[in-house]
């Protein structure tokens, strides 16, 4: 009886490991057919944010709109296919790409070395942003003021760990931005740590008139859009590199920034100048 039980457990464990091992092996598969697949399907599936105003959010009719959705639209237009948007979360966006549920991910993702091992982040980067906080006016002045105090955050954001290890803030992370900002408004935390560009958009929206962004922005990090890892060196990855190059060169991203009311970013201006310099006068 005892032996039988052990055998069953071993069997389950083996099945589990085998199943997992197979998914890992699947990831190693190198293909070059994503581009052709999208064309054949006549539809491009892009993973975007649906809760990150103004990059990707739902308008009053429930449709997903935003700066990154416009970028996805540009890609679909260049390929002559229809666009399908899949809303993703910070904590699951890379899995969507790994499992082949989306062809492309434009989801406000910071470009990190460990992420490059998992998904095919395409060069050049299309944006940069840093970490800052939104807080009631006069409550905090510098990063060290956060020590030992509850600071609201979003689950899955990498700066949660940095702010807690660097300044000793107690991170209280919520599933979505809406809950976290509600907790800030309820006074459950002193500040809401997030992306400076997103906070600027909040401040500009007029809903946060008693609030400010008091800190010096830290860790300016580039953003990367991504294709599946094994497609990075193929047509698909190279095609996306070209898209980003042209977005920079033509000033399309600066134009979109203006359209969505985002504070102008120095990075986009620098990139435009850099790429323009290669053009004959």
């Amino acid at each position: 009886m005892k032996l039988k039980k052990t055998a069953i457990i071993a069997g389950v464990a083996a099945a589990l490991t085998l199943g997992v091992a197979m998914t890992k092996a699947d990831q190693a598969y190198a293909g070059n057919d994503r581009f052709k697949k999208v064309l054949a399907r006549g539809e491009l599936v892009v993973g975007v944010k649906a809760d990150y105003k103004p990059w990707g959010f739902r308008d009053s009719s429930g449709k997903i709109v935003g700066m990154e959705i416009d970028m996805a639209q540009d890609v679909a237009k260049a390929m002559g296919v229809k666009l399908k948007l899949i809303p993703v979360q910070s904590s699951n966006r890379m899995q969507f790409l790994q499992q082949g549920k989306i062809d492309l991910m434009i989801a406000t993702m910071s470009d990190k070395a460990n992420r490059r091992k998992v998904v095919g982040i395409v060069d050049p980067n299309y944006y940069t942003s840093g970490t800052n906080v939104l807080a009631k006016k006069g409550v905090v002045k510098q990063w060290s003021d956060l020590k030992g105090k509850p600071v609201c955050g979003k689950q899955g954001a990498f700066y949660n760990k940095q702010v807690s290890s660097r300044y000793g803030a107690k991170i209280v992370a919520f599933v979505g931005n809406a809950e976290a900002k509600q907790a800030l408004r309820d006074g459950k935390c002193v500040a809401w740590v997030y992306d400076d560009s997103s906070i600027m958009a909040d401040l500009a929206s007029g809903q946060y008139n008693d609030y400010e962004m008091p800190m010096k922005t830290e860790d300016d990090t580039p953003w990367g859009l991504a294709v599946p890892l094994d497609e990075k060196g193929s047509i698909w990855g190279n095609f996306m590199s070209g898209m980003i190059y042209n977005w920079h060169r033509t000033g399309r991203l600066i134009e979109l920034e203006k359209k969505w009311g985002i504070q102008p970013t120095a990075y986009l201006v620098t990139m435009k100048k850099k790429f323009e310099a290669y053009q004959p006068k």
Partner: protein
Amino acid sequence: MELFGDFFKQLYDTTGWNFVIFYDQVEWDRFIAAIWTTIRLIIACLIFSVIVGFAGAWAQGAKSRIIRYGMAGYIQFFRNTPPFVQILFFYFVVGNLTPSYDAGGYQQAYIGSFGWAVISLGFFAGAFNTEIFRSGIEAVPESTVEAASSLGYTRLQSYIYVVFPLAFRVCLPALNNNLVNLLKTTTLAYGIAVPEMMYTANQIWSDNVNVPEMMIVLFLFYVGLVAVLVWGMHRWEKAMKIPGYG
């Protein structure tokens, strides 16, 4: 410990399997803290829900119509809404109506996210426990209750000393089931930022991009916890067995 850590570091370098919690001190500390929070949360919820069930089953048979209707309303409310909605409701709505004090730029509530998780999950499972206990109480023969009252027991005394001990034995298997469910439902507390296992695993896999690895850890962790609970409940069931009854 060092050898153990080295093994997992090696595993990551050679196979790409990143069980970061076993070789990175910071992540290990987070993981251990999460284990304690989870266990505390589960124990608090289990005890609270059983107390609610005990009191609720008594109130269901109360003489006062107000108490009986109040009880029925409570059960309907908690059985007919999803537990996640209840947690959010308690934390964001009821939580703002309870007293708090200014702790330097933020409002420190007397009941924090942990407290609200225990209250909402305790009431949620308590509603089911009430019904489970009622099924047990109804299984106690009417003649036994009459015998108790003819011996001079009041309604409360006969509930405590005669009816409940018998009813409890009848409904233990069903209670067992509900408590296992409650244990698993505590993961929903991640929605209001209680740093339990689900929440911490999410943070760890976001920081280290090791979702499948942490999923396995999470999975095994809960399998283990439920196994311990079920084992304990079975022992209890056996220990309380009355020969010739049930």
